[in-house]
């Protein structure tokens, strides 16, 4: 079986019907209200597939559900009994966008880097991914800048290119090959003309982006601490803490785990999506919140998406899907943010600000207090912490606590 094939459009339904008979098929479906969502499709003939618009929420919910029961527990007398709820279902995700597929590859790294998350991996290893390259990027798509689209070079099981009356199909990984081999009669060999045409479509798609942003500059400004404090202030005022930007982001993976009693003797341990813009996300037991101001939390969000991911995974974790661009209550969005950061003049801050920043972050001192202490420190030559303590702005305990928290010491 060659690596490239042609699927005439009239055979798409037949191919998907076969898949749906054997596995759970998930595909973007436009419902009667006009919304496009990834749906479990049990009968292909009953739904209208929508391969032209971006589903409202990303496919991550099928790997990391909004609410997921990890195990059930029961206690009888002193004894606890547990019953694990491991997912076990074979799926095919059809009609992914490249950005969303790339986001899944990112999850693959995250969910096995420190420990192997069996819930995620069970689902993931049982799922075949078929993406459809974006021949017509939508408004607010910027996967090209994020280098996660519009077409992928690897990572997919199958990649489709829409060529009008037929799909150009590329086989990436064994899962894809398995499907194609099984129902090979739907497919035809490619010609050189098909290849040329597909190449043209890719080129055209690449040039079709309205939104181009400069991730590299933004990341380096971040890493060098050159983002103007006033910007955080503004974004902090705008954010209303809905959590939406995290809930709709294909690469946001933060979750919360809690026990949910069902009755007096039974309960469930559940995992739910979480969002870093929420106050409760960073508040520690005892009520202390190292990022109690909204601007600190917004900063954290962008830091994590851009600089942290770059340092850890060598690329930002934003895949440019554009979802957060359209939905923010305060009109904050990734495109706007990157552009603003790139536009503002570089303002390098001194490294000695580090402790000051930590204390500022923790809300223990104000900007004014820090500024005053820095000025005094220039005369006295004392370390900034000592200066702040001397000025009676904070106590030794405060400093120790803030540092402890910053370093992850409980």
């Amino acid at each position: 079986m060659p690596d490239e094939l042609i699927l005439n459009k009239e055979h798409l339904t037949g191919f998907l019907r076969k898949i749906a008979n054997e596995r759970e098929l998930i595909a973007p479906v436009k419902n009667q209200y006009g919304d496009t969502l990834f749906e479990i499709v049990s009968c292909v003939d009953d739904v209208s597939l929508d391969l032209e618009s971006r589903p409202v929420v990303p496919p991550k919910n099928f790997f990391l559900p909004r609410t997921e029961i990890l195990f059930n527990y029961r206690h009888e007398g002193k004894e606890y009994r547990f019953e694990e709820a491991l997912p076990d279902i074979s799926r095919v995700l059809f009609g992914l966008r490249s950005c969303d597929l790339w986001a899944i590859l990112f999850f693959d790294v995250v969910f096995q880097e420190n420990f192997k998350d069996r819930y995620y991996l069970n689902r993931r290893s049982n799922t075949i991914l078929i993406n459809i390259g974006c021949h017509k990027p939508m408004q607010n798509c910027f996967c090209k800048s994020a280098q996660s689209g519009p077409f992928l070079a690897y990572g997919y099981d199958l990649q489709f290119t829409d060529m009008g009356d037929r799909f150009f199909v590329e086989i990436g990984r064994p899962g894809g090959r398995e499907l194609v081999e099984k129902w090979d009669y739907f497919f035809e060999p490619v010609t050189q003309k098909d290849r040329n045409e597909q190449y043209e479509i890719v080129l055209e798609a690449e040039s079709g982006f309205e939104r181009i942003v400069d991730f590299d500059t933004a990341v380096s400004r971040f890493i060098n601490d050159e983002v103007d404090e006033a910007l955080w202030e503004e974004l902090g005022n705008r954010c209303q803490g809905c959590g939406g930007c995290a809930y709709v982001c294909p690469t946001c993976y933060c979750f919360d785990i809690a026990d949910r009693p069902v009755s007096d003797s039974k309960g469930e341990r559940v995992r739910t999506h979480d969002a870093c813009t929420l106050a409760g996300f960073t508040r520690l037991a005892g009520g202390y919140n190292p990022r109690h101001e909204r601007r600190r939390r917004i900063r954290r969000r962008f830091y994590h998406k851009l600089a942290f991911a770059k340092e850890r995974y060598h690329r930002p974790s934003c895949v440019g899907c554009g979802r957060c661009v359209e939905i923010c209550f305060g009109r904050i969005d990734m495109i706007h943010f990157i552009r603003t950061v790139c536009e503002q003049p570089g303002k390098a801050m001194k490294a000695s600000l580090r402790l000051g920043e930590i204390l500022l972050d923790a809300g223990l001192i104000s900007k004014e207090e820090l500024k005053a202490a820095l000025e005094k420190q220039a005369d006295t030559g004392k370390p900034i912490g000592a200066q702040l303590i001397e000025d009676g702005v904070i106590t030794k305990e405060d400093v120790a606590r803030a540092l402890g928290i910053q370093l992850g010491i409980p």
Partner: protein
Amino acid sequence: MHRVLTTCCFCACGCNLYLEVEAGKIIGVIPSREHPVARGNLCLKGWNSFGFVHHKDRLQYPLIRRKKHLVEANWEEALDLVAKRLLEIKERHGGRSLGVFSSAKCTNEENYLLMKFARAALKTNNVDHCARLCHSPSVIGLNNAFGSGAMTNSISELANAEVILVTGSNTTEQHPQIARFIFDALAKGAKLIVVDPRRIPLSRFAHVYLQPRLGTDVIWLNGMMKIILDEGLLDETFIKMRTENFRAFTEILRKFDLKQVEAVSGISVEDLERAARMYAGVKRAAIIYSMGITQHVSGTDNVQSIANLAMLTGHVEREFTGVGPLRGQNNVQGACDMGALPGTLSGYQDIASEEIRKKFERVWKTDLPSDRGLTGIDMLHSVGDKKIQGMFIMGENPALSHPDLKATRAALEDLEFLVVSDIFLTETAEFADVVLPAASFAEKDGTVTSTERRIQRIRRAIPPVGESKPDQQIICELASRMNYSMHYESSAEVMEEIAMLTPIYGGVYYDRLDKGWGLFWPCTNPDHPGTPFLHKGSFARGKGRFEYVVYRPPAEMPDDTYPFYLTTGRIYPHWHTGSMSRRIAALSRERPEAFVEINPKDAKRLGVANNKPVRVISRRGEITVKVRLTDDVPENTIFIPFHFREAPANILTHDKCDPGADIPEFKVCAVRLERVQ
């Protein structure tokens, strides 16, 4: 897994969302992107609105009080008992001794059925609901001025306004989607005026921010109108063509002394001039207000003043303008529309009119009482003369939401018989003789009407939890036990009856609602497209009516013994009495406990510290609550949210009410603070 489109159960923005159902449980929600208000996102409450549905505290079976304790019972027993006791009281003391609280959290159909039950089966017009506590002055004030008490324009029009005046509404926290349209307008260059005693988050984006003292709204509104009059910024053509009583109005307004403004409200005349010019100087200006305007003894006056201002400048009757009272509960608009009010049947049809009564009597097949009933406040706050002996409370929680809780709770305690239907054992249900477990929004069909008068579906996604039943079913089963037959196949059939009897809902049918995103009332017949903005070309009452309003101060002002102003309200992650939001992990985590906002200068004087408890004392009672220091409240003013049962703000508030609307003055009372040693 499957998904069911429905309407959010929290606020009256009316976002549509999909409930994700797996194995009979709701596991998540997804916002609708096509829905014109949700636009692909929800506030934190909406995103977590499924979180209470399967909570272990859900009431699963009826409870009956036996030897002081509420114990498990079956439906037969519980309903028989309720019917028997209500009938007994009715026979002994007459229907007027019974009272009913309907619910702004229940559907239109349920509100309609409960008010029908009250009037037709119990023979009482004592039916009310929590709109009494939030927008009764809007219903009266805007009705007097314009002829209809609802938002004049639709929400999305805000995005195209040139000036938006927000007063007494903490919009980002209470109506997030409306704030989102305000941000859209700002991005298009609109100007924002915020007038609020608290420095609310939106004030940071205001081009003019005015900080009046609590309860001085009539003063600054009159001042603003005086400036507009003096500077000739009024819309004379509009006034001439579309309004009445202007001459009498201006005769008094002309004499208004602008010096009063600063003395009484603390707003400087220069600032007020800036606001007046900004608002009057453009074609498309809208006013948004909420309970900061209505929850005063002068609530109706405040609303009338706002209407005066809009008419003076011609900022009503047109697209992208108008007056928008933001309704709180998901269906508070609908509960009013359905006649869960003492004086009106559905569609604001006067119970006193014989002709109207006849129309309903023909369909309901019984006689109706003709005298206006008692308001919710009078039902619970006139304990002395023992008017109300038995009550049916559906999904409301006065034991936490009413003013002067000691008095409220004493009144509940005093009732001969109380039946409560709710989804949790609320503070009110704890007083009940019978508690009936109700189904939540996810477990029933119906419609709700959002703040922009948009009638939308809620759809059943899962069967009722435990043995709970939709209120619609509870009411009908009860009625039949009381010799009054109420039988409906479905909520759609109830809506057919509503449409038949209610002109403004005359064209509302489920098949129409299922196409598109609901209908705006008035929608008078099956071909009527609905009305996104009211008063187009002419006010509902014919001509808009100017009425000069004289300032009256709040009922209780700070003095030497109680030197602080207390104002109460809500916060973003929580919902009213917290029975749902505090049971949702993500919401309760945002604000797990009660707090009082105090200005740091006051705190210093009193020697109280951030995060430390303080005692707040009023003439009615006291609570202990943790301090939260913030400049957002001015000196001498404290703010306490009323969501928290451990520190109920309404222990402190008083029950003095607006004379016309009978709304208590939740926004102002006097307290003192004491350090807790």
